[in-house]
């Protein structure tokens, strides 16, 4: 399989292992202490994922002449991610049966959903048109949802006492047990403010379960996701029971197989909030999402190490273009992401994603005689040029192959047979002839359309948030990134454009760089009235927020305790969502202090909020005379892990070494064929400079330097792409 260099006799010390168990294939990514990597593949084995995992690892290690028993004892970091969890949600099928107890009258919450759920996850045009909207199938059928009469209001006051209606709980639990449920999820309105009804329900339910000698567990929304909005809260709790818990057993087996082969490392799972968590962690549903955020974590680590504070991260794969922003070495959090067409209540690293990638289908819209891309794609099936697949529609990659940008002999290190003739024939038939154009003209048109689209999307993400691209370095990675980087960054005015040599493995690199991190959030409604003195405010609001933080801290501590990690190793961070009283939206503020029960500390927090508000909106928009409200409190606990090394090498001359030059071939640039030099991406030396047109071929990616562009490799093996003046 592919690896970053070909000399197997050299000794490799595999340190970082990232596994991605997809629906069909399990990919393994191993990186050694020199930053060199190897990739393996094997069929996913859903009944016992550890078998596919070991096979895939063997495949990867094969090119280093190592076996798992040699390599595993040296591992310092192992991160697992799989799609089994997400598949249960997407397919609405699980091994476990889940029942729900909810506030009487709210039994149809899952079925009614929210308007947004009728189009989340759809393509742009399908979101736009009402006739394509449809509410998704709820996770739990109506007959397994029972109401309990009770009510807590938005301030946490008891309106309808539960004790009058405890029979509702008994009846409901008995009914659910009759239906054979394995888990009972309890979600009452406003339980994030006051959880005693949920707690009491758990006691009563567990009595009934014990009386009947059943093997059913009870989960409370207030224990898992104590946040505002009942639909995402219920969706998330149910996803936890329905999709995440069944995976725990699989993860345990993966851990056992690492142990069996001499590994001494705890398997961690990538979580949506941007850290990795233990396989025994409480909230496993956050590991539902794994893919693109790996790159963000990698980018943040990369930025911290190399001194880049503000980054725009761009990742092109086969199916999508993912974009994210890092400011002051931190990402933004989306508190209500969507997955499998469900709105969830999880903290997730904020990314924008559009459905355009190198595998996007290219079609001519018959109504307007116009080239259109996607939203469907061939994904990892590449395109019609990949003769061993059964793709029939032209993809963007087919166009690259036709234009001579990608070498058919060298695709994925030559592992995938590619035919340029087949690509050209298909482009002619499906695109060029219909538009009365030449094949190459059409292929170049396709690339231009894609790159213009990506450029627009990227501009919208950066300037739409009120930022100027000139304050950012644009980092480009993903297998398809470096082919398009010049195209989609053109005219945007980024401070610099950076392409790490290991772009293709950057997400996996990021997974390996992810710290141990637990994060707990709690919705609050803590008012700091404008008229109060700081002393008064610290005694009321300050005490209250401090207490919430302490509770969350306790939860984070408990999680770390499961992995035998002591408090002295953990760095805590404290966040709030804050707003001026009466506003609708809150802003995310990282607190400079861990307690706010004294006037000085509270003032520091408020000053930080004012500064954040000024930066995000403007000085004129500040309105401290309205008073403040804290709508959410969060605690993050972070423990460092050993991270993949970023290479550092001595600078050499600007002239590339002779053995880096591979050949020259004709490639099509702006309507003309130009003899273009081709280099081995991995054989270049730090300090080397190249002028376009040039093609730099790596094992799993091709980096394109168009005419009028220059690239230089720095001492960390990162390319800097610039446009000639």
């Amino acid at each position, binding site marked *: 399989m592919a690896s970053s260099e070909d000399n197997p006799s050299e000794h490799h010390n595999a340190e970082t292992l990232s596994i991605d168990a997809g629906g069909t294939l399990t990919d393994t990514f191993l990186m050694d202490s020199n930053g060199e990597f190897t990739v393996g593949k094997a069929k996913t084995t859903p009944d016992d994922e550890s078998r596919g995992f070991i096979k895939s690892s063997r495949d990867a290690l094969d090119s280093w002449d190592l076996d798992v028993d040699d390599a595993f004892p040296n591992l310092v970091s192992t991160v697992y991610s799989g799609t089994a969890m997400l598949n249960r949600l997407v397919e609405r099928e699980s091994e476990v049966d889940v029942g729900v107890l909810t506030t009487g009258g709210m039994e149809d919450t899952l079925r009614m959903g929210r308007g947004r759920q009728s189009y989340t996850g759809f*393509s742009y*045009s*399908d979101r736009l048109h009402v*006739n*394509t909207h*449809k509410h998704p199938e709820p996770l739990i059928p109506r007959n397994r949802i029972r109401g309990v009469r009770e009510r807590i209001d938005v301030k946490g006051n008891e309106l309808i006492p539960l004790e009058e209606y405890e029979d509702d709980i008994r009846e409901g639990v008995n009914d659910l047990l009759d239906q054979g449920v394995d888990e009972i999820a309890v979600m009452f309105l406003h339980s994030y403010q006051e959880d005693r009804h949920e707690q009491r329900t758990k006691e009563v339910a567990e009595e009934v379960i014990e009386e009947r000698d059943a093997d059913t567990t009870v989960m409370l929304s207030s224990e898992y996701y104590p946040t505002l909005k009942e639909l995402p809260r219920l969706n998330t709790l149910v996803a936890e029971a329905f999709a995440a818990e069944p995976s725990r057993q699989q993860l345990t087996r993966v851990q056992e197989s690492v142990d069996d082969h001499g590994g001494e490392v705890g398997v961690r799972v990538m979580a949506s909030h941007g850290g990795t968590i233990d396989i025994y962690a409480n909230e496993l549903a956050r590991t539902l999402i794994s893919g693109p955020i790996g790159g963000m974590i990698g980018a943040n680590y990369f930025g911290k190490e190399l001194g880049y504070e503000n980054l725009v991260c761009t990742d092109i794969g086969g199916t999508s273009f993912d974009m994210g922003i890092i400011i002051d070495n931190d990402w933004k959090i989306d508190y209500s992401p969507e997955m499998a067409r469900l709105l969830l209540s999880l903290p997730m690293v904020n990314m924008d994603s559009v459905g355009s990638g190198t595998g996007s289908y290219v*079609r001519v*819209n*018959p*109504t307007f005689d116009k080239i259109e891309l996607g939203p469907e794609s061939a994904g990892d099936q590449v395109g019609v040029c990949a003769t061993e697949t059964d793709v029939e529609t032209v993809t963007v990659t087919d166009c690259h192959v036709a234009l001579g940008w990608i070498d058919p002999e060298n695709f994925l290190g030559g592992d995938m047979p590619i035919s340029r003739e087949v690509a050209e024939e298909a482009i002619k038939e499906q695109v060029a002839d219909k538009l009365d154009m030449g094949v190459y003209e059409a292929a170049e048109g396709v690339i231009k359309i894609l790159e213009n689209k990506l450029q627009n999307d990227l501009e919208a993400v950066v300037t739409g948030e009120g930022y100027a691209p000139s304050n950012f370095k644009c980092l480009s990675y993903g297998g398809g990134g470096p082919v398009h980087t010049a195209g989609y960054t053109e005219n945007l005015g980024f401070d610099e454009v950076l392409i790490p040599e290991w772009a293709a493995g950057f997400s996996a690199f990021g997974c390996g760089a992810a710290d141990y991190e637990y994060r707990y959030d709690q919705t609050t409604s803590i008012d700091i009235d404008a008229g109060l003195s700081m002393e008064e405010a610290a005694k009321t609001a300050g005490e209250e927020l401090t207490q919430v933080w302490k509770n969350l801290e306790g939860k984070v501590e408990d999680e770390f305790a499961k992995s035998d990690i002591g408090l002295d190793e953990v760095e805590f961070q404290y966040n709030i969502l804050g707003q001026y009283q009466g506003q609708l939206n809150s802003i995310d503020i990282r607190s400079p202090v861990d307690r706010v029960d004294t006037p000085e500390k509270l003032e520091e927090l408020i000053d930080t909020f004012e500064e954040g508000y000024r930066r995000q909106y403007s000085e004129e928009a500040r309105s401290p005379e309205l008073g403040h409200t804290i709508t959410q409190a969060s605690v993050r606990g972070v423990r460092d892990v050993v991270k993949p090394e970023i290479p550092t090498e001595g600078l050499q001359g600007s002239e590339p070494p002779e053995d880096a030059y591979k050949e020259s071939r004709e490639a099509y640039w702006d309507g003309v064929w130009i003899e273009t030099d081709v280099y081995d991406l991995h054989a270049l030396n730090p300090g080397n400079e190249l002028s376009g047109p040039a093609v730099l071929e790596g094992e799993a990616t091709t980096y394109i330097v168009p005419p009028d562009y220059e690239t230089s490799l720095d001492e960390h093996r990162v390319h800097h792409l610039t446009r000639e003046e």
Partner: protein
Amino acid sequence: MPESYPREIIEDLVDDNLEWSELHNMMSDFKDADRFKKVRDVLQDRVDWDDPIVIPYADHLYVVAKSEDRWVIKCDCGHEFCEHDENWKHDALINVRDTEQEYLEIYPEDMHPHPDYMELREYFCPGCKTLLEVTNVMPGYPIIHEFEPDIETFYGDWIDEPIPTPDTQSA
């Protein structure tokens, strides 16, 4: 995207028998070039009369060609209403619900509009007595004319085909 769907799929589309995912794909894709013609053929095969369908007009109703330049609105039972640019509702059987009692025949209590503000007009085919249309309007509101098709423009400028005539149909 197929340029053309097999007839079975179009029949399922007309009968609303497609799975949501199939229907969604059809809606999201570029429109198949011969969709109109295929739908019209399916509908034509299902009626017992020979007048060529020019366009489907509403549920159960079609505009059919009586000659080269005369088109009428016709029910699938064979009843002919009026010229294609007139309001067929003027020729329909009409039931008006404008009292509490009449509303309660079809609505649960307290769930219907107030009869002083809104009346329900139900239009039936005089031939087969099928309920063809219901409108809910203020008392005194004129009978709504939903749709006046511009047949020449549709055939000439949009789909670029000759308008069906009784002669081409039998040929």
